[in-house]
Structures are given as structure tokens and as C-alpha cells.
């Protein structure tokens, strides 16, 4: 019996090793996964061994959302992949699964001799500061954080997300028939609320009588909660709902599609999620920012400090898909866009700026107003 068991195990090992060998031989074939293609895997391996001259290695640390988060981690990585195709840089990423791993992962990239390390998200601010102070010759970039702007080796990539939100707010304000629109937020933080201030301002600028139903889901990955929140808003009369809530927003779009009301996407052009429902999206071109900073390091024009991306330079924008937008709405958006670029309209980005314009009760998701 004992011998038979042993033989069985050995047989299993043989089978597996055979399979592993045959699998190994076609390792160069494309993997077909979108985030990490097989051809890149081969290149990555090569570069891990020795430095190739004339190119740079760019490392990226994700936050706990991971590389396929449909949000800024993914977008930033897409920017680096584009830089790989067009500029020949060598990008790598490390995924963080827990908050405590940021420092370790940054260190792994330093060990891998990266010329630039991009930290995605304000959650990495402290870890970035520590690493930047410890390794003054290492170039860093961080997305959505400007607390490290004082350091000589950190570029802070910031976005005027309230401007794009303002534009989709105009769309919502003009397209609503019930005079009730909705907004689902992923988390009530400074940068996240910029989406809300801009949106509400945009809605009210074209439709002062509109009601904006607001909900803080306090989650970026809970599609079920997003759906419930959106259904609730639809029951209360909302016929356009904007989300700034990552994966939670997928539920918002689903609810809108089911009930035949408009949804507005965020970060990237989300029209492909529901082509008849997602009327527009507020784009945040994290990919462009990552691409630009990698290019700057490659060309030797890297500068630390704050880099602000706005409507003017295409860092934020309204989605290119406009098939669902009536001409008058599109015209109003284009006008507003130009006015923002020219400085005729200043969109509020902070609680103070917003309350100065509308008073304390209009926007309900401020962290303090929860008390």
C-alpha cells in the first residue's frame, strides 16, 4: 500500500514535470493577458539581467487597488506601456497588496536599478518621502499627491479633476428631465471631493434648480453597493448619475443601464461598459502624466516639484465618445471648456472655494459635515 502511494506520487510528479517542460518551450508565445503580455515578459527578463544602454528603466508601485483596477493604477501602467512602444523605455511594476508593503516594494524597485520610480496614489506619500530622503539620487514621481513637492527628487503629478467634473456636470444639468441628478463618491477625501465640487458646480451653473443627490459609498471596489445607491437615487427621481468611485461605479452604471437612465463615467472613457447608457465620462489622463514623466527622464528634462495637469494640456478632459450628446449640450461643454482654459471660469476645488460660492449645505459629502 505504502509503495503504491509512493508510486502514485512519483507518477504525478512525472506527469507534472513533463507538462511543465512542454509548457516552458512555448514561453515566448504571447500570453494574451492584457496587463502583462508574453513578449514583454521576455523583454523584462532580459533587462532584469543586464542594463541596456540608451534606454531607461521605469518602475511603478501600485497602491492596494492592484494593476487591473480600472482606475489610476491601470491607467498609469498603460501610459508606461505606450512609452515602451514609442520611446523604448523598459517599464516594470510591483503590486502592493497591503498598506505596509509600500516601502518594501519601492525598495524592490530601487534594487532593480530603476531610473525612475512612479508611486501611484496619495496612500504612498509617506513611503515615498522616506525612500526619497534615504536615496537622494533616485528620481521619483507620485500621482495625486503634492505633500512631497518640497523634495528635490520627487515630481508630484496632480490633476485638476474638478475641471473635467465641471464639464460632465454641465452635461448632467442639461440632460436631466426630472431636474434631479445623482453623484456617487468612492471616499470622502480632499482629492476625491474635487470631483464632487466640480460636478455640483457644473450642474448648478446650467440648471440652478436641480437637486443633486449625493452618496459616499466609502468603497472603491463594491459594485453591489454602487448599484444599490444608484437604484435608490433613481427611485428618488434621478435620471443622470455620475460616479467617482472606481469599481463601485461599475454597479452605478449597471443600475442606470437596467433602469434606462444616463450614467457618467470617470477616469477613462467608460462608454464601452454600457454604450447606450454612459453618456460621457470625466477623463483623468494619468497615462499621459506617466508617459510624460518617463519621457522627461529619458530626455534628461526631469524636474521635481508639482506638475499640474488640467484641461489646457489635456491632462483632464471630457471623453471622446460624444455620440449620445445632443448638439446644444456639446456646444455648451465646448464653450465652458474654453472659458476654463481662458480663466473666465474658475471651478472650485476645495471646500472653502465651494462654500464661498454656494454656502455650507449644498455639498453634503465633506468629511467634517458628517458629524
Amino acid at each position: 500500500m505504502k509503495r503504491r502511494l509512493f508510486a502514485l506520487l512519483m507518477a504525478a510528479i512525472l506527469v507534472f514535470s513533463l507538462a511543465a517542460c512542454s509548457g516552458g518551450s512555448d514561453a515566448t508565445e504571447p500570453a494574451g493577458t492584457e496587463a502583462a503580455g508574453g513578449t514583454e515578459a521576455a523583454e523584462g527578463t532580459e533587462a532584469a539581467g543586464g542594463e541596456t544602454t540608451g534606454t531607461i528603466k521605469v518602475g511603478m508601485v501600485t497602491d492596494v487597488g492592484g494593476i487591473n483596477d480600472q482606475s489610476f493604477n491601470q491607467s498609469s501602467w498603460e501610459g508606461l506601456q505606450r512609452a515602451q512602444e514609442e520611446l523604448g523605455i523598459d517599464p516594470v511594476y510591483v503590486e502592493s497588496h497591503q498598506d505596509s508593503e509600500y516601502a518594501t516594494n519601492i525598495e524592490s524597485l530601487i534594487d532593480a536599478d530603476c531610473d525612475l520610480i512612479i508611486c501611484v496614489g496619495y496612500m504612498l506619500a509617506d513611503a515615498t518621502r522616506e525612500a526619497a530622503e534615504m536615496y537622494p539620487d533616485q528620481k521619483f514621481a507620485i500621482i495625486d499627491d503634492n505633500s512631497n513637492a518640497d523634495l528635490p527628487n520627487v515630481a508630484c503629478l496632480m490633476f485638476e479633476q474638478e475641471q473635467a467634473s465641471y464639464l460632465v456636470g454641465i452635461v448632467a444639468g442639461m440632460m436631466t428631465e426630472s431636474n434631479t441628478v445623482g453623484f456617487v463618491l468612492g471616499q470622502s477625501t480632499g482629492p476625491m471631493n474635487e470631483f464632487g465640487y466640480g460636478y455640483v458646480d457644473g450642474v448648478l451653473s446650467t440648471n440652478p434648480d436641480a437637486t443633486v443627490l449625493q452618496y459616499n459609498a466609502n468603497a472603491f471596489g463594491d459594485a453591489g453597493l454602487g448599484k444599490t445607491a444608484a437604484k435608490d437615487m433613481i427611485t428618488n427621481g434621478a435620471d443622470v448619475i455620475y460616479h467617482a468611485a472606481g469599481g463601485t461605479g461599475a454597479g452605478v452604471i449597471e443600475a442606470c443601464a437596467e433602469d434606462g437612465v444616463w450614467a457618467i463615467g470617470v477616469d477613462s472613457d467608460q462608454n464601452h461598459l454600457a454604450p447606450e447608457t454612459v453618456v460621457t465620462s470625466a477623463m483623468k489622463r494619468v497615462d499621459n502624466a506617466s508617459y510624460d514623466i518617463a519621457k522627461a527622464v529619458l530626455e534628461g528634462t526631469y524636474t521635481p516639484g508639482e506638475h499640474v495637469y488640467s484641461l489646457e494640456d489635456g491632462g483632464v478632459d471630457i471623453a471622446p465618445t460624444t455620440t449620445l450628446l445632443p448638439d446644444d449640450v456639446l456646444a455648451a461643454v465646448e464653450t465652458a471648456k474654453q472659458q476654463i482654459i481662458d480663466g473666465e471660469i474658475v471651478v472650485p476645488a476645495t471646500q472653502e472655494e465651494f462654500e464661498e460660492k454656494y454656502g455650507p449645505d449644498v455639498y453634503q459629502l465633506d468629511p467634517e459635515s458628517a458629524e
Partner: protein
Amino acid sequence: MSKNKSIFQSHVFLTLIAIVVAFLVGALFLGIMGYNPITVYTTLISGIFSRPRYLAYSVVYATPLIFVGLSVAFSFKTGVFNIGAEGQFVVGSMAACIVGIFVDAPPIIHVPLCFLAAAVAGAVWGSIVSFMKIKWGINEVLSMIMFNWIAFYLSNYLVENPAIHSDGTAEATKNVADSARILLPESLRAVLAPTSNYGILIAIVFVVIVYIIIEKTTLGYEMKAVGYNKNAAEYAGIGVNKAILTAMAISGALAGMGGAVQLLGMGQRISLFAGQEGFGFEGISVALIGASNPIGVFFSGMFYGALKYGGSKLNLIQAPSEIVDVITGTIVFFIAISHVFKVVRRKKKEVS
């Protein structure tokens, strides 16, 4: 059963076989996905062993897992499946965080105080569940899973509290006071890793304590009796309910201290969770791989921690770090299968 067990029947041997098979299965998956398994495993192994700092990091990653592994292993002995270790871990780190931030004391008092708070919080969290099971017969697996989520949102609620929230931009608590940290002296950390800490020594102490409780005390004997056969234990005059309550309290305390060791050693703050961090679930794998034996748990915790750290580097060669989960999952799977073999064999013997 004969006393001289053959090498093929020993847990250690079966576990090693399971590990080898798991790496082969991992290689199979890598091959299918178009990666060269040899390159991936070379990166994994050099990511763990090629520098002293990497080894030190592996130990740092392993420490909380040893605690949670001990917690789950301890509850297994009584036949309770502590799937709630995740929640106990979270409340443990919450308690340690509160004490670590608001109490001002010299390290010699501050650190034990943090651990005590974490142990009590974890014990209470575990005891509520076992109390409900005993009092009202509520299925402990269900309530533990729900308690994991209660702990999860409680922690997020805590982080949002202005008194404890970070002054910076991060959605996290303030950092715990330096006097509560368990870091090794600066000179040693320069050689090892920046977050190398005393946690591993504390873990070893608890491995010994748990071993003694299980093997050398009446409580341990009673717990094991309840685990083997509840009715027989009751017939023999053992207080089954009391044994389960005690076991869950100790199990919870161990998981809670795991939270403390992670916070005071490596994390230094609690961030707003976007999803469960999963220490508790990793602890279940650690306990299973370690055959619920405290010493086995120590080694399987080290193994798991090293894989977890080394696995994070697989991204560097564009390979999926999830392959580590495939490997550990397969190990657990094959260990479970080996138990099936044993049962089948025993049945056959009984028949013949």
C-alpha cells in the same frame, strides 16, 4: 498503530512532497500562461535568498503569519475552525494602534501594553462568537465571517476618527509612537532590513507557550479530547463548552497579537481598508501546512512569509505574483488529499 512510523507516513515527508508537487503545478500554470517557469522560480528564490536584507524581510513578512497560524492551529485542536482570525487580527491591531498612539510610556511598558491590549481585543472578539455558539447554537463559521466584516468596518470607522486620523494626506491613522515600536537597534537594521524587529523572537516565545499548553497541560489535553470526540469527552467529564470558550479566547488573543506585531513591527499605521488584508486567511493556510503543530506552524509561517515577500518581486519580470497563491493553495490541497489517503487506508485496515 505501530510505533515506528515509516518515513512515508510522517507529516513532514508528506508536506515536502506536497510542496514539490505544488511547485510543479505552479510551473504548469506558468507554462500555460507563457512564462518560463525556470526564470520565474529563479527570480523567486533569488528574491528571497540573494541578499541578507531579503532574508530579513522574509522574516518580517513571516512574523504575523506565525501568530495567526498559531491561532488557527490552536482552535483546530478543539475542532473549531477559526475562520474569524482575520477579524481578531484587525481588532488586535486596532487596540494596539490606540494604545500605541495615545499612551505615553517608556518602551519597556509601552510595548507589552500594546500587546496586552491586542490580545484582550482579539480574545474578546473570538469569545463573543464562541459564546453565541454555546448559548444559542449559532453556527460559528457564519458568525465569524460576519465578525470579520464588523471588524473591517470598525477599523475604517476608527481610521476616520479625527482624533486618530493622520495629519497628512494619507487615509490612515497617525503613526504609532516610537516607544511602542519593536524595531531592532538602528545598527542591526542597517545590516538587516529597515523594518527588522523583535517580533520573531516574541513569536518563538509563543510557539513554545502554545506547544506547552497543548502537550503538557490539562487544558491542552481536554481541548484535544473535545477535538477528537466531543461526546466521548463530555462522557469523560470534560466541560466541552468551557474548553471551546477557553480555546477560542486564546486563539483570538494569538490572532490579535499577530495584528499588534504587524503594526508595531512593519506597518506603523492602519490605513483605510479597500479590501480585507487577508492575514487571517493566510494564517489558515499556514496552520494547515504546519499540520496544526506549533513547531510546524513556525516553519510553515517562515515558508509562507518568504514566498509572500519573494512573490512580490515576480512583477519585476512581468510574471504574475499570484503564482505564489497557486503554489500555497496547491500545497494545502495536496495535504488535504494526503489525509484522505490516510482515512481510506485506515478504513481498509478495519475491513481486513
